[in-house]
């Protein structure tokens, strides 16, 4: 499969297979005017399969969000066709305003103005819980 080469942009690599579209939505990549490619189930040496996002523009990324999806994600910054930077997100202590609490009994489900906040409660198993009702993300 051919995807156009990026000159100035970002390649988000090593996304866990099947979660690329979720990340696409969280990062609101649908709002960009530039070329964006989502590659699903690409072969991966370490994990067998992975998803990849290619964005043909250098944009500000929410690294907390990337870390929440998986801290093993790699972010490659491309300038003039060359990779100039490679970064890994870290596991964030807190994630705000992105993930929604699914508990219908949570106060966030009836008061729309409240910011959804999740805190890391179990780093070993990467468990995040809603700060209001403790429901797992």
């Amino acid at each position: 499969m051919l995807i156009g080469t990026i000159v100035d942009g970002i390649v988000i690599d090593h996304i866990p297979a099947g979660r690329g579209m979720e990340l696409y939505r969280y990062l609101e990549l649908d709002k960009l005017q530039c070329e964006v490619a989502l590659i699903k189930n690409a072969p991966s040496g370490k994990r067998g399969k992975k998803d990849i996002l290619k964005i043909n523009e250098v944009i500000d990324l929410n690294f907390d969000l990337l870390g929440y999806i998986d801290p093993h994600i790699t972010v490659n910054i491309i300038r003039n066709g060359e990779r100039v930077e490679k970064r890994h997100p870290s596991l964030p202590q807190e994630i705000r305003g992105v993930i929604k609490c699914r508990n219908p009994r949570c106060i966030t489900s009836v008061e729309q103005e409240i910011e959804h906040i999740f805190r890391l409660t179990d780093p070993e198993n990467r468990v995040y819980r809603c700060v209001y009702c403790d429901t797992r993300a």
Partner: protein
Amino acid sequence: MRSLLDIADLSVEEIDALIAKAQDIIANPEKYAEKCRRRKLATLFYEPSTRTRLSFESAMLELGGQVIGFSEAQSSSAAKGESVADTARVISCFADIIAMRHPMEGAPRVAAMNASIPVINAGDGGHNHPTQTLTDLLTIKREKGRLDHMTVGCCGDLKFGRTVHSLLGAMSRYEGVDFILISPEELRVPEHVRTDILKAGNVTYRETESLQEAMPELDVLYMTRVQRERFISEADYVRLKDTYILTPDKLDTAKPDLAILHPLPRVNEISVAIDRDPRACYFKQVLNGKFIRMALILMLLEVE
């Protein structure tokens, strides 16, 4: 400025200090009669809970303070659509401390994030009710003289019973506390309690369906109600319901100094015949609730 939203917000040392303060209040009530003079407690009860509300209100009155508030959402500005955050900001202008009961989980945290005065969670849906747990701890301390080195039996609905989950969390922080979890298969403690409290705290516990089998070992028996609507199968409910009703004959093998607790209200899970047994502590628990709330109000208002 601090709030109390979850029993886990308090360290063991703070819980011990609150219990010690409550015991001093019990021993010397006159010393505390004017401690909160000119202070106001706002009881914001978005759903009715007469016992908890009156406990908070009598606690503040016995400290010499005053009480304002509402006892159902219909009589508050919530009926006009005001948010919890805005109500918390407004009430901060009138009162010195808030006790909030709300049917939605996390509402008291939203209040605490927006109020400029301390907020006490007086129960948020099926989520947290930290002053009930403090009440339970004070009762156990007064009855047993300690909170460590004992066997605690929790009986009934351990799946949905938030009071049991909080008690497990709080008591597992004391040394040498073993738990016997007595419930039907359907109502065993949920997975998150198993991993976050029992496994994480390296707690010694075993599970059984038989109250009779566990009875001789228990120092404390914490009863909760098994509700019909919690069962998937009506046949299972009929088969098991009487197993978890405490009757005098079931106490034949119990220790003479067993303490029987129940968060109340009781329906039929403890026979009224048990009320005369000196081991019944559930009405003493109600009284203890007032004393521990007095201690908590003093702590959060930073009154010595």
